[in-house]
């Protein structure tokens, strides 16, 4: 674990370019695990011969030319990603402001509740909103039409706007987190200075606070944009009925068709990768040199602003968010899971728990999916955190050259839409001599890789806070590397290890994009199971399954919360 705690090492020659094993071994592994699937995707995208051939026999640009006939897929992807990001960031900025900088009543409770929709995930969101906002029988429209007597629905969630809305409310918690963290690090003197010069609250917020928040806002926007470009569940569940295709579900259709059109799907996947790469590059370019220029690492206690008569508007906004992203969706799923048919009736006498019995016990596929997902979540948590911790310790503690490269490569999967990565990864394991296809091990491997950036970010933040002198003091006291790791490093890392582990558990349990192609009939997992249940109809049962997933995630969230509180007390 301790990168530089080696035995009497050979003396380094002066100023050499010295890449040590703790850097190059993970680098080679990561390059292989990311590069090979990408290479396969690349060759297939340019394959104009036999579509099933791998490697391709004939190369050309025909697939990309064919894509020009489907520009709507790419256009829709961009529409959803830009629209969703814009709406999500707006929600994020307002909510972060409300939580961290105002005197709004119930701020702490809001902070807690606003975080929940993200781990619940897009599947829960899409399923719930399809029952809430469907034009004819959606609950909201039924209530509206009942109350007003109108025969026209109030909302239609099966539209691009509906998709953007659901994407935005379920990704917004990330923006709240990133922007909120920056708000807490901001030196309030910068704002106070502006007020002293006579600027009003609104002017100060607009002219000083917002520009200072720009780096955080851009980072959050990038995160949302890349994740929306690759999102699958929401556009598929809400867009398919109106034949609104984005790139991800177009790829899914191309692959599920007979015969599957691998080259066209690969070309479309490449376009998606290119779009995220451009977004990453642009944001980095804008952020270069100004990321933390005015925001110190220290936590200030920024002065909360009393928003006066705006307080109640903000309070209403926060309540509306919690209602739309948490209470209504979970409530709808719960109610739907008690039904005997797709139509929701509010006659308690007909409500039943049969759907739960069915998905948890009677139906083997979902029963196994639940167990598999829990197992996968635990394994991803443990192994993912172990890998991330190793890399974080190396990048922060090792003296080896090449550490910045290792960090960049570790973060690289973030720029890969997970569905596309899984598609390339599937091909890779088909070409490997080991029989991995259709096993949980394949899904586990893919999860570890796609969630590595998330885990690394978490662990890196923990490792960087541990004073190196704490380990050095132990070595001076005569402890060898193993003893230092056991008695000092690991105990200090433990809170971070647990928190990051549980986070990985949650995102694994709710994942669908990465496991859709990889979980075979003998290794069902929750995300794809919910999706195929939805595909084959039966709202009550799919709702019950989604509720089970949500409960697992909520339990994990409670554990995180409990651990964080316990650590805060120590």
């Amino acid at each position, binding site marked *: 674990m301790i990168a530089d*705690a*080696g*035995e*009497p*090492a*050979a*003396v*380094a020659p*002066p*100023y050499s370019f010295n890449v040590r094993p703790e850097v190059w071994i993970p680098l080679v592994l990561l390059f292989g695990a990311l590069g090979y699937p990408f290479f396969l995707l690349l060759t297939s995208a340019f394959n104009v011969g036999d579509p099933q051939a791998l490697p391709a026999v004939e190369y050309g640009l025909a697939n990309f030319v064919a894509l020009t006939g489907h520009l709507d897929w790419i256009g829709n992807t961009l529409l959803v990603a830009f629209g969703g990001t814009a709406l999500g960031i707006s929600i994020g900025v307002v909510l972060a402001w409300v939580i961290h900088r105002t005197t709004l009543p119930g701020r702490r409770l809001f902070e807690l509740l606003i975080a929940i929709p993200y781990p619940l995930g897009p599947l829960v969101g899409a399923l719930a909103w399809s029952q809430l906002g469907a034009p004819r029988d959606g609950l909201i429209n039924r209530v509206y039409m009942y109350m007003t007597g109108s025969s026209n629905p109030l909302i239609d969630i099966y539209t691009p706007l509906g998709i953007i809305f659901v994407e935005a409310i379920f990704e917004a918690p990330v923006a709240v987190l990133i922007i909120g963290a920056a708000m807490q690090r901001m030196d309030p003197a910068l704002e106070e200075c502006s007020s002293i010069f006579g600027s009003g609250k609104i002017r100060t917020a607009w002219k000083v606070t917002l520009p200072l928040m720009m780096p955080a806002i851009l980072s959050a926007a990038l995160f949302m944009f890349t994740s929306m470009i690759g999102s699958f569940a929401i556009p598929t569940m809400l867009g398919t009925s109106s034949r609104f295709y984005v790139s991800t579900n177009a790829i899914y259709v191309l692959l599920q068709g007979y015969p599957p059109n691998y080259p066209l799907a690969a070309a479309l996947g490449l376009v998606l990768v290119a779009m995220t790469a451009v977004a990453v590059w642009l944001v980095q370019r804008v952020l270069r040199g100004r990321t933390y220029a005015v925001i110190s690492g220290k936590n200030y206690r920024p002065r909360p602003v009393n928003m006066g008569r705006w307080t109640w508007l903000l309070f209403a906004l926060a309540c509306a968010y919690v209602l739309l992203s948490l209470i209504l969706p979970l409530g709808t799923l719960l109610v739907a899971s008690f039904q005997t048919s797709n139509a929701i009736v509010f006659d308690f006498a007909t409500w039943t728990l049969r759907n739960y019995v069915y998905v948890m016990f009677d139906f083997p596929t979902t029963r196994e999916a639940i167990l598999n997902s829990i197992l996968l979540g635990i394994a991803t948590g443990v192994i993912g955190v172990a890998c991330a911790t190793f890399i974080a310790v190396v990048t922060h503690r090792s*003296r080896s050259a090449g550490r910045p490269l290792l960090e960049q490569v570790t973060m690289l999967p973030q720029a890969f839409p997970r569905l596309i990565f899984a598609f390339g990864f599937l091909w890779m394991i088909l070409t490997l001599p080991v029989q991995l296809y259709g096993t949980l091990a394949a899904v586990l491997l893919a999860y570890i890789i796609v969630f590595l950036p998330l885990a690394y970010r978490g662990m890196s933040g923990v490792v960087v806070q541990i*004073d190196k*002198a*704490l380990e*050095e*003091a*132990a*070595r*001076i*006291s*005569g*402890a*060898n590397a193993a*003893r230092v790791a056991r*008695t*000092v490093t690991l*105990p*200090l890392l433990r809170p971070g290890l647990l928190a990051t582990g549980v986070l990985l558990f949650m995102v694994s349990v709710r994942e669908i994009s990465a496991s859709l192609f990889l979980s075979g009939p003998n290794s069902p997992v929750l995300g794809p199971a919910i999706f195929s249940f939805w595909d084959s109809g039966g709202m009550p049962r799919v709702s019950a399954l989604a509720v089970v997933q949500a409960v697992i995630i909520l339990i994990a969230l409670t554990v995180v919360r409990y651990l964080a509180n316990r650590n805060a007390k*120590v």
Partner: protein
Amino acid sequence: MLAANLRTDDAVDSAATDAAQPYIEVRNLTAAFDGKVVVKDISFSVAQGEHLSLLGPSGCGKSTTLRCIAGLETPVAGEIVIDGIPVFSSTKGISVATEKRKLSMVFQSYAIWPHMTVFENVAYGLRVQGIKGSELQQRVADVLKMVGMEDYISRPATDLSGGQQQRVALARSYASRPKVILLDEPLSNLDARLRVRMREEIKELQLKFDLSTIYVTHDQEEAMAISDRIIIMHDGVVEQTGKPLEIYDTPRTRFVADFIGAANIIAGTAQGEAGNGAPILKVGEALVECAPRSKLLKPDGSGQYLAAVRTVYPEIRRGGPDGPNQWSATVRRRVLLGDIVNYTITWPGGLLRLHRLPSDLFEEGETVKLHIPASRVIPVVAD
């Protein structure tokens, strides 16, 4: 009686001339960070029981030197010998791991393990040595008592104030009864009052245990107060080595004169020699005789020779006889600082700053007689 006295003197002399084997020896040490050389070919030694300070501004390489001795950094070249055993040698390819060097160290951040109690912190090194049971309890209790922390033995380490953490850090490093202790800016995070008290305690413990000590600091007052010997470092090289007063009174370079205490640097051209052979410097209109047996050293870029005059040594009085190194001067500015008074005076050599006691005040504008004793004009190397 007389013979006995002579013998004692002899013994003292031979110890002072380092006839005994030095406990730590550093030879031609060079260290680099990310390809940038931060310590350039430095050599020094520490005798048994000696307190040596590495003093210099931040970035001078003093901490890196200390960390090389501890084995926390790997030097590029050189040799380090501790108690006769080479622990690092670039030519012989030796590099003994930190944990096997049998050192103890106090860190700037104290490095108190936050997940352990005070007892656990102090017991750590003893446990590594295999000490258990009642002996462990006893030794931890003893060493905590020594630093006045016996009442805190079962407290979590995070409950301690800065000064208390510092005491625990000291206790931890003394617990294993080391022969050498390395201290890396141990007091820089404490407030001024506590700093003075702690440095006295450190000195007492050092004497009590006859510890060889290497003490890294950027605070000249601290170094002067507790060191037997000081090494002044600047840009990775040793500027000067010597006893505290030696360095104060006879700085070798302009950097040392500026860094230690307050000094006027006067610049002039060589103007022959005085009767005793001391060089004479022409500073502005004034002919200034330098310290006896001194020589003018390397001049600066414009060919001017430099000499340092500590602000405490020039004397001013109202009238008096003329003589060498005496001039008529005018008080330009007076600043009362309480214990001392700062004067800026105009003399034929330009401007001079000096310190006096508040007992005898001179007025601004007053004409005075300035005397710079020749023995206090120290030629220095221009850097």
